[in-house]
C-alpha cells in the first residue's frame, strides 16, 4: 500500500512555496499550514476556555455570591467544558496530527488536502456560533457540557438551537479530520514503513481516528434528537410523551466515554516518542504499547454507564459496568509501567518536553488512581457529581492532554520554526504550570470527599479553605499560559538556529528533513529500512 506514491509530480511540487497574503491561509491545502492554523486556533480557545474557568474560580474564591449570579455561573461551567473539550484539546491534537503524521510516515501531505482545509475552517464558524450564544437573550447554554435532558431541552434557554448546530459543525469537522488521518496513515506511508514500525504517535492517532468516526455520529444523533424534542414535538427524552431522560445519558456517554480517550490517546503517543528521546534509550515494550492502546479503545465502548451509576441501573448492569471499568486499569497500567521502564537505566536529561512528559506520566497516573476509585460503584455513590470527580478528570485532562500538548509543542517547535525555544523560560513555564495545576486541582479531592457537589456557585464555609487555595492555584496556572504564548512567539521570531535533529536521542523521519521543515517535504518518499 505504501508504495503508491507518484514520483512524476515530485520535482514539480518543489517549485512553488506558499501563496502570499491572507489567501494563503484561507485556501491552503498544505498540511503544515493547516496544522499551524489548528494549533493557533486551539491555543486561542484554550485562553478563552481558561478565562471562563477564571470567572468560575473567582466566584468560588469565597462563600457567598460576589462576582456573578448563578445563571451566568452555569453558563461559565458549561462553556468552559465545551470550549476546552471541543475547541482546545481536540483541535490541538488534530493540529499536531496534521503537522507530524505526514512527516513521521514520510508522506508528502495529508491524503485529502482540500477536505483538510474545510475541516479546519468549520471550526471558527462553529465556535463563533457557540460563543455568540452568550450574548443572546436568555443567555448561552447553562446545562453543563454534558447537557442532560430535560434541562437542555424543555428547560433550556432559546440559544440551545445555536448550540446544537455548533455541535453539528464540530462533529463534521472531527469526522473529516479523522477520515483524513486514517487515509494518510493507511495509504501514504513511505516504502518500508510497516505498521509495526510506525511511531506510537501515528499508532495512537490511527486508533483515535477510528474512535472519532465511531462516536461523533452518536453525538450528532443525540443533539439532533434534542433538536426534534425542542422544535418538532417529539419526545425522545421526555417521559411525559413516552420518552426517557435516561436514554439521553446512555447515548451521550456512549459518545462521551470514547471521547475522553480521544482526548488522551494522542498524548500517549507523543509522550512515547519524547521519553525515549530524552532517556536516550528505545521505548520499552513497543508492541505491548500498541496492543494496550487498542485494548483501551475497545474497552472504551463498554464502560459508558459508569458515568451514570446513580441513575438507577439494575444490579447486574451496575456490576457489568463496574467490572469493565476496573479492567481499563490493566492496559493503562501496562503503558505506565512501559514508560517507567523506558526511563530506567537511561541517560536522561530534562529539557522542557521531558519535564512535561514525566509530569504527564506521574500526574496522569494520579488521575488514573482516582479513576479506579470512581470505578467502585458503591464508593461512586459518594464521589459521583462531587468535586472529587472534578479533581479526577482535571488530573487526566490537564497534566494528561494539556501537558502532552505542551510537551509535543516544545519537542517539535524547533522543527516547525527553525529556532530553538528559550529553554530557561520553558522550564519556568513548566514549573509554574506544575505548581499551579496541583494547587488548583489537588484540594478538589478533599472538598469533594467532604461533600461539596460540583457545578454550584456558592458553598458552606466548611469548604472555604480548600476552595480559596484552588482558586489561587487556578489563577497562577492561567496566568502562566501567557508565558507560553510569549515563548512561542519569541521562538518564531528568532533564537538559536535549530539543526535538522535538535535532540541527540531523537529517532524518526521528521528529523531527517531540515529545520524549519520546508513547505513541501517527502515529495520523493524516503526509504525506511
Amino acid at each position, binding site marked *: 500500500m505504501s508504495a503508491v506514491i507518484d514520483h512524476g509530480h515530485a520535482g514539480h511540487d518543489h517549485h512553488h512555496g506558499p501563496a502570499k497574503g491572507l489567501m494563503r491561509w484561507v485556501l491552503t491545502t498544505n498540511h503544515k499550514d493547516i496544522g499551524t492554523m489548528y494549533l493557533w486556533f486551539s491555543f486561542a480557545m484554550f485562553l478563552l476556555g481558561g478565562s471562563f474557568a477564571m470567572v468560575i474560580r473567582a466566584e468560588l474564591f469565597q462563600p457567598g455570591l460576589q462576582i456573578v449570579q*448563578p445563571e451566568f455561573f452555569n453558563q461559565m461551567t458549561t462553556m468552559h467544558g465545551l470550549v476546552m473539550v471541543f475547541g482546545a484539546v481536540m483541535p490541538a491534537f488534530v493540529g499536531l496530527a496534521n503537522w507530524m503524521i505526514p512527516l513521521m510516515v514520510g508522506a508528502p501531505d495529508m491524503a485529502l488536502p482540500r477536505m483538510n482545509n474545510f475541516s479546519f475552517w468549520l471550526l471558527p464558524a462553529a465556535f463563533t456560533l457557540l460563543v455568540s450564544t452568550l450574548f443572546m437573550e436568555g443567555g448561552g447554554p447553562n446545562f453543563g457540557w454534558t447537557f442532560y435532558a430535560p434541562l437542555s431541552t424543555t428547560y433550556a434557554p432559546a440559544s440551545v438551537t445555536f448550540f446544537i448546530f455548533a455541535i453539528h459543525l464540530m462533529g463534521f469537522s472531527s469526522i473529516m479530520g479523522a477520515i483524513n488521518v486514517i487515509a494518510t496513515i493507511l495509504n501514504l506511508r513511505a516504502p518500508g514503513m510497516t505498521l509495526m514500525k510506525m511511531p506510537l504517535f501515528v499508532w495512537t492517532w490511527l486508533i483515535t481516528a477510528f474512535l472519532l468516526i465511531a462516536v461523533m455520529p452518536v453525538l450528532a444523533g443525540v443533539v439532533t434528537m434534542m433538536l426534534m424534542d425542542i422544535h418538532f414535538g417529539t419526545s425522545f427524552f421526555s417521559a411525559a410523551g413516552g420518552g426517557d431522560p435516561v436514554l439521553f445519558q446512555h447515548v451521550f456517554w456512549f459518545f462521551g466515554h470514547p471521547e475522553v480517550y480521544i482526548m488522551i490517546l494522542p498524548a500517549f503517543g507523543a509522550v512515547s516518542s519524547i521519553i525515549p528521546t530524552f532517556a536516550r534509550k528505545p521505548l520499552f515494550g513497543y508492541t505491548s504499547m500498541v496492543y494496550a492502546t487498542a485494548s483501551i479503545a475497545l474497552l472504551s465502548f463498554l464502560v459508558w454507564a459508569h458515568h451514570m451509576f446513580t441513575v438507577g441501573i439494575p444490579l447486574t448492569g451496575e456490576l457489568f459496568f463496574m467490572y469493565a471499568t476496573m479492567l481499563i486499569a490493566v492496559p493503562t497500567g501496562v503503558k505506565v509501567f512501559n514508560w517507567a521502564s523506558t526511563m530506567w537505566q537511561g541517560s536522561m536529561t530534562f529539557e522542557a518536553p521531558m519535564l512535561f512528559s514525566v509530569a504527564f506520566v506521574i500526574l496522569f497516573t494520579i488521575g488514573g488512581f482516582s479513576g479506579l*476509585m470512581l470505578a467502585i460503584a458503591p464508593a461512586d455513590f459518594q464521589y459521583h457529581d462531587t468535586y472529587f470527580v472534578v479533581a479526577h478528570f482535571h488530573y487526566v485532562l490537564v497534566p494528561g492532554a494539556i501537558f502532552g500538548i505542551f510537551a509535543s509543542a516544545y519537542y517539535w517547535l524547533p522543527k516547525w520554526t527553525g529556532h530553538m525555544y528559550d529553554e530557561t523560560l520553558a522550564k519556568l513555564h513548566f514549573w509554574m504550570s506544575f505548581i499551579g495545576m496541583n494547587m488548583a486541582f489537588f484540594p478538589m479531592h478533599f472538598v469533594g*470527599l467532604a461533600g461539596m457537589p460540583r457545578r454550584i456557585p456558592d458553598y458552606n464555609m466548611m469548604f472555604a479553605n480548600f476552595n480559596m487555595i484552588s482558586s489561587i492555584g487556578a489563577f497562577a496556572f492561567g496566568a502562566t499560559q501567557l508565558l507560553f504564548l510569549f515563548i512561542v512567539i519569541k521562538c518564531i521570531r528568532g533564537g538559536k538556529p535549530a539543526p535538522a535533529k535538535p535532540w541527540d536521542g531523537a529517532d524518526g523521519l521528521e528529523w531527517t528533513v531540515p529545520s524549519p521543515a520546508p513547505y513541501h517535504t517527502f515529495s520523493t518518499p524516503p526509504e525506511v529500512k
Partner: protein
Amino acid sequence: MSRHPHVWMGILLWLVFGTAQASWTTNMTPGATEVSRSVFDLHMTIFWICVVIGVVVFGAMIWSMIIHRRSTGQEPAHFHESTTVEILWTVVPLLILVVMAVPATKTLINIYDSSESDLDIQVTGYQWKWHYKYLGQDVEFFSNLTTPQAQINNQEAKGENYLREVDNPLVIPVDAKVRFLITSADVIHAWWVPAMAVKKDAIPGFINESWTRMDTPGTYRGQCAELCGKDHGFMPIVVEVKSKPDFEAWLAKRKEEALAEKELTSKEWTLEELSARGEKAYATNCASCHQANGEGLPPMFPALKGSSVATGPAEEHIHTVVEGRPGTAMAAFGKQLSEVDIAAIITYERNAWGNKVGDMVTPKDILDFKKAKE
C-alpha cells in the same frame, strides 16, 4: 483492613468535621449506617492500594530520575522488550482488581436490597426544593432553603449551616429500614445524604429506589448533586433522625397541622392577613426567580412589578400560578401549594412593589378555579 483504624479515623474526622466547623476536612464521612461504613471501608481500601502502587511506581521513577541521568555520566542501557514482565504487570494488577471487586460486589448487592422496609417515603425533586411524602401516613411537605438572601449576598454574617438548612427537614426514625422512592417533577436532580451513602437521581417520569437504616439520632445534611438549573446550589437536604417515640410524636403533630392547614381554606381572610402570609410564601416559593423586589431576572424570569398578569384580571393571574406556563420555567403551583398559600401569594403580588390593584383573591377563589378545571 481491620475495622478499628477506620473507626478511630471516623471519630477523628467527626471531631474535625463536627466541632471545629471544619474547613480542613479531607476525607469522606464514614456516615451513620452499616452501608455507609462499608462504603467508607471500600473507599479506604482502594485508596491504600493506590497509595502502595503509587509509592512503588513513582518511587522507581524518581529513583531513576536521580540516578539515571546523563549528568551523572550514566550510559543508556539498550533493553527494550521483555514478554515476561509484560505478562507479569498485566496479571498482577488483574489479581488486585479481582480482590477489590469481591467486597465491592457484596456491598452493592446489599445496597440494592430495598425489600422489607419499615417506612416508605416518596422524595420528589422540584426546581429548587425537595418534597417529602410519607406513604400511607397522610403527611407530606416541601423542604425549602432557609438561608436568607442577605447572607448569600454578603450583607449579613453567614450562619453555621449556610446553604445547608431548611424549613422542614425530613424526619425519620432511628434503627428502622426507611425506603426512599425518588422521583422528580421537572428536571433531573439527585438526592444525596453522605451520612447514609445514598445518592440517587430523581428523574421525571421514573421512580428510583434506595434505602437506609440510620443507627444514631441526629441531624444530617446533604445537597442536590445533579445540575438542575439556576438554584442547583441552593436546594439542600436536611435529615433529622429521631428515636422511635419522638418520631411517632412528630408524625402525630404533623397530621394535626395538616388538618389545621386545611381549615384555613374556609376561614374569612382580610387583605392585610393574606398579604402578610403571601409575603412569606412568596419569599419561599417565588423570590428565587422573580426576586424579592418583584423585578425578576428577564428574559428568563419576567418581572411581576407592573406586569400585565399581576395588575390585570385576577382570573388570568390565578391561571398562571395554578397551571404554570408550559414550555417555560414557570411551574404549576396548584399541585405544590395549598389554596391558602396560592391565594396569599397572588394577593401579595397584586398589592406589592407599587402594584395597586387593591383586590383580594381568597382561598375559595382558588378552590373554585380548580373545581372548574376538573
